[in-house]
């Protein structure tokens, strides 16, 4: 495979910058992946659960005043669900890395039930791994953008890494053995799951 020095340098820059730009999230994903593999080591008993019933004036939970209500009751996170229950109550859910709020505004709008879960430190760290998607406050959208960058970086530095290796050590038998065995193994797993 012939490659000019300019192309090689360009690919090396992509390889380097792809990893440098996402290193914080990559480290977080690597650490939390192990935490998820060994999830039984991290007890969910340390989560703080609370159910609160609040008497309200209907105007307090109107759309105009909803943000005030949220601030007053420290309801954090991004809204992930909203629907009317069969009994006509309004249900809203807010999810953040470290917390989860399930809110039921009863039909008469004079009572609100707030069920909150504040996760432990381990739960919060794992919560970062599970957060995804655009929408909601600015920081969630920036995080989603970073997540896209991580996805793209993973693909880019795997591909550029293999190309750079071909330039550097294309006659290295150990490298070829590792690459081919990795490819064969992953292909067999995918093939088996696909066809059996």
């Amino acid at each position, binding site marked *: 495979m012939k490659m000019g020095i300019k192309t090689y340098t360009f690919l090396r820059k992509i390889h*380097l910058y792809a*990893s440098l730009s996402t290193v914080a999230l*990559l480290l977080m994903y690597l650490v939390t992946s192990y935490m998820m593999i060994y999830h039984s080591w991290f007890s969910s008993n340390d989560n703080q659960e609370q159910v609160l019933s609040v008497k309200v004036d209907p105007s307090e939970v109107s759309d105009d005043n909803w943000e005030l209500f949220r601030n007053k009751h420290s309801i954090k996170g991004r809204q992930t669900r909203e629907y009317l229950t069969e009994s006509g109550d309004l249900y809203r859910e807010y999810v953040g890395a470290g917390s989860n709020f399930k809110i039921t505004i009863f039909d008469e709008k004079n009572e609100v039930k707030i069920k909150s879960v504040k996760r432990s430190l381990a739960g919060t760290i794992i919560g*970062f791994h599970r957060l995804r998607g655009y929408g909601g406050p600015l920081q969630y959208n920036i995080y989603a953008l970073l997540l896209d960058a991580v996805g793209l970086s993973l693909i880019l530095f*795997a591909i550029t*890494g293999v190309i750079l290796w071909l330039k550097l050590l294309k006659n290295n038998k150990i490298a070829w053995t*590792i690459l081919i065995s990795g490819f064969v193994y992953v292909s067999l797993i995918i093939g088996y799951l696909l066809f059996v």
Partner: protein
Amino acid sequence: MKKSLLIKLHLYSGLFTSFYLIAFGISAIILNHNIKVEKKDITHNWNTNIQVDTNLPNKELKEKIRDQLGLMGWTPPWEDKRDSTSFQFMITHTGRNYFLNLNLATGDLDISEAPKGIMAVIHGLHFFNGNIPNAPFFIRTWAVYQWLALFVMFISLFLGLWLWIKYNYKTWEGIAFGSLFIVSIIIMILL
């Protein structure tokens, strides 16, 4: 340690995880954009007759049937539909859904297969730990590969950073990417 040895270690560990990284990269983008990649089309129908005690509770009955048919997969209880004459349920794994309809009186069993497609399988590897009921040993080794791939990714990342800092560091890169690192941490704290 010699530079050439560090480069080789970075390279070997990178090569070991390259396919895993690509699968995870694709999966991360699929998750972030909530893209539906799972195919639902039934591609194959077949039937057979089985001998099982149909008085068994749903869970045991499903597992007996699955084992008799030699299928691998989970049997999600929320997919069960049972009445006095028939029992419908699902067996599912990362790559395929099986929809089964058992005639409780005769033991006749209709099976419909819906492969999820290659994108769904690649995406599914993100959540896969090799632990599918009835899966062969070979599939269970994925847990070891996954563990090693993550570990090797750590090594590759640290070695890459070390090589950059030691031999290739430029001040503007340090400032730019250092700032991006700090911004990423601040964003995470704000979530």
